[in-house]
């Protein structure tokens, strides 16, 4: 994958937050909120010839589905399309190259883990890190350690690659419904991420829109499930994603 960035010189204490569609759409919800809240500007995009051709038009301007945003020393990479498993390592390599080029000191990835809850008080965010230095960050921010589980898809590709390259990575796994968009759990993910980044957030607006967001993002959730569980997507009874 090729990246196109516009960068300015700044101290080497740069943090990258990364979010893409996965369980409960936690990563995409959380990144969207932080980008919006901090008014982070677009400084680049990530493209790949095998990605489904998609662009968004915002106030008459064309923007791609995988974008790089920046504000001060904080970078954000958000994907609004699911990353197919065949592209996971290319996507990861593009992120790695970006981190090395921009001297990113740590990467934080909000994501979701299948742990269905009946009350929002039961939602928890767990941390999984590839670097001991980030365990302190987890401890300081009351993030319990992700102890046992199996991770598949792009999350697994990112964890493996960043561990091998020794770039400090912290994945924040928030308990969520894995098969439905879960903005309620995303509020917890946003709050935890904001605490770690030491920024103030007000999630009351998301709270008001939870039901609408669940309806609005049905398509993206379905497409994400089709990429995570492709054998089910190949069943002849299902229509191609373009008709969803």
């Amino acid at each position, binding site marked *: 994958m090729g990246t196109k960035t516009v960068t300015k010189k700044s101290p080497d204490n740069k943090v990258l937050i990364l979010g893409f569609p996965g369980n409960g759409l936690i990563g995409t*919800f959380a990144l969207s909120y932080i980008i*919006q809240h901090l008014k982070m500007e677009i400084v680049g995009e990530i493209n790949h010839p095998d990605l489904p051709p998609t662009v968004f038009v*915002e106030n008459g301007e064309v923007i791609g589905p995988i974008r790089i945003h920046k504000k001060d020393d904080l970078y954000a990479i958000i994907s609004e399309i699911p990353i197919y498993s065949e592209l996971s390592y290319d996507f990861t390599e593009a992120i790695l190259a970006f981190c090395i080029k921009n001297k990113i000191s740590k990467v934080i990835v909000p994501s979701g883990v299948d742990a269905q809850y009946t009350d929002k008080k039961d939602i928890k965010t767990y941390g999984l890190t590839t670097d001991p230095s980030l365990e302190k960050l987890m401890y300081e921010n009351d993030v319990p350690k992700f102890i046992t589980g199996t991770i598949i898809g792009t999350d697994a590709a990112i964890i493996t690659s960043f561990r091998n390259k020794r770039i400090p990575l912290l994945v924040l796994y928030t308990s969520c419904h894995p098969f439905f968009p879960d903005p309620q759990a995303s509020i917890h993910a946003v709050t935890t991420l904001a605490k770690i980044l030491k920024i103030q957030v007000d999630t009351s607006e998301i709270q008001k829109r939870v*039901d*609408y967001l669940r*309806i*609005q993002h049905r398509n993206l959730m*379905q497409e994400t499930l089709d990429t995570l569980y492709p054998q089910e997507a190949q069943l002849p009874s299902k229509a191609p994603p373009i008709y*969803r």
Partner: protein
Amino acid sequence: MTRDWFNVDNFDIPILQLGDDLEQKILRPLSCIKEHESKWVLEFDLPLVEKKDINVYINDDEMIVVEAKLREVYHDSKFTRHQYEHFKKSVSIPKNADVKKISARFTNGRLVITIPKIFQGTKIKIED
């Protein structure tokens, strides 16, 4: 420039899902099914719905049908102003289901239908 994911009115493209019915103002909800040792658990995501406005039944084609009325009209985009008032979806009942013992509950906008399995097969005696 940023994209406001959290403002429904800012979405410029109507999100049509397979099975959504513009004329009848019907949305097709997401659903999933999980198999357990003794049962199937079928779940529907029904935001903007009250328990009293849900209708669940088995039709003549042996399918579970879920219908629900939204508590307010849902608009999918500021340009099209498509309006939706209901959810509706039909799902096939698994083959080994104990249809008479199907139960349902509704929590946090999610309808969970439990479909117990009927034991099928021949019991094999363990000899001394």
